[in-house]
């Protein structure tokens, strides 16, 4: 479109304005690391294909889709946000769950608070960061704590899981309930403590191809590659529960 003229011209180094072979994907920010890998592999496998991923918070991305973002596929971190898009009748077919994420206790390297289990979080000597209950990781934390019968007075509520993790990394708190994947991504600065219990609540990551896709075939191929065995193995390495 006319408004795209400037960036198209300026972006000549990375993309070529071939009418097909180029798709745009909106993806939850927590997928950043593994999805970049999947995209690289997909592009290597599919000559001429060009995948641009725009990461962000799931709900913000959903709003963008509803507001008309020219997108081919959407990878959401929760079924609720995918629902917003589906309700707007923008999804082709049914969204597919391609991965799950569960919570872990993240503690700073060396575990200064001596946190060994979920129950330890109830101790008044342990400062805990939780996500605010309005956001998915917070809602999940509420479920987990309720299921375990542990009542925690958090030192802080955080707007998203990364903020909570940052507080652990910097040692501001002794522990936080975050996603497993975040603990994996954070590397050595953070240790994970398993919550235990196989029936612990999880969140579902859903993928969907969008109805207005300019290149439905390529978009479908990309979604398929996320669901493929190779895709799942990358996601599993990053800490996601797949299968």
């Amino acid at each position: 479109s006319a408004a795209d003229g400037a960036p198209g011209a300026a972006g000549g180094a990375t993309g070529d304005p071939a009418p097909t072979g180029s798709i745009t994907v909106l993806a939850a920010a927590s997928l950043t690391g593994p999805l970049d890998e999947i995209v690289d592999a997909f592009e290597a496998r599919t000559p001429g294909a060009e995948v641009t991923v725009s990461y962000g918070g799931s709900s913000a991305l959903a709003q963008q889709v509803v507001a008309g973002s020219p997108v081919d596929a959407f990878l959401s971190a929760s079924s609720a946000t995918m629902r917003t898009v589906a309700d707007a009748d923008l999804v082709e077919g049914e969204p597919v769950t391609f991965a799950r994420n569960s919570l872990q206790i993240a503690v700073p390297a060396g575990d200064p608070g001596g946190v060994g289990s979920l129950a330890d979080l109830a101790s008044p000597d342990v400062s805990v960061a939780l996500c605010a209950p309005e956001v998915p990781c917070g809602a999940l934390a509420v479920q987990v704590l309720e299921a375990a019968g542990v009542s925690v007075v958090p030192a802080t509520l955080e707007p998203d899981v990364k903020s909570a993790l940052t507080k652990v990394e910097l040692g501001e708190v002794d522990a936080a309930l975050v996603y497993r994947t975040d603990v994996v991504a954070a590397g050595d600065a953070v240790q994970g403590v398993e919550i235990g219990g196989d029936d612990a609540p999880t969140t579902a990551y859903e993928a969907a191809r969008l109805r207005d896709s300019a290149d439905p075939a390529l978009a479908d191929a990309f979604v398929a590659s996320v669901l493929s065995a190779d895709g799942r193995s990358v996601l599993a390495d990053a800490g996601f529960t797949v299968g």
Partner: protein
Amino acid sequence: MLVLVPALVGLALLVLPAVALLVRAPWSTLGSRLASEAVLDALRVSLTSAVLATALSLLLGVPLAWLLTASDAWPRAWRRLLRAVVTVPLVLPPVVGGIALLYLLGRTGLLGRPLDAVFGVTIPFTLAAVVIAQTFVAMPFLVLSVEGALRGVDRGLDEAAASLGASRWYAFRRVTLPLVAPGVAAGAVLCFARALGEFGATITFAGTFPGRTQTLPTSVYLAQQSDPDSAVALSLLLLAVGVGVLLLLRDRWLTTGVR
């Protein structure tokens, strides 16, 4: 009259988004959405922290602006650096500003560690953290406004005050400051407005504890995740408070000072 075209386009650009927000607002449920304890808490925290941040900015920013004008006598490179440095919080995305504040004042931060070790004081996750974050982000507005106003003051009046035996501080307090009152008021309003709308640095440095550190903008952000209509309702509340303060103060500040 051709000038009117860009002026009105500019005005439209600034106003129409807010109008769109109004149009989309869930008017029928607005009352019930806003009449909750949580919203009142957030409003209270927002107003308290913005007022405190403005006060702190006045306390620290007015002397700093004065230092900036006094820096005219310094070597040029120093002067330029000082000015640029004051503007740093403008360039830094607020979230990064929040991280920087954690690096500085967090429990393991540059100053935070000794503070914690010696006094047992931890700043993050408190109202103080909200105020500091807002001050960090909003104070440059005040400083730049006041500096501009200070530059406009007749130096001759300073000389006159000195010839009457006034110390620099007495002259500043009794002559310069009253004369720049409109500029200070303007800066304070900008600073307050910016503090009221502050989100990124606050949420990073202070978290979003309801009733303690959760401000209206963080409420908006959280509501967006779960209930977009509530987010719009809260945004409208924020807008109403902000515009109300601007309307209230604007006129005062325009008539403060001489005559």
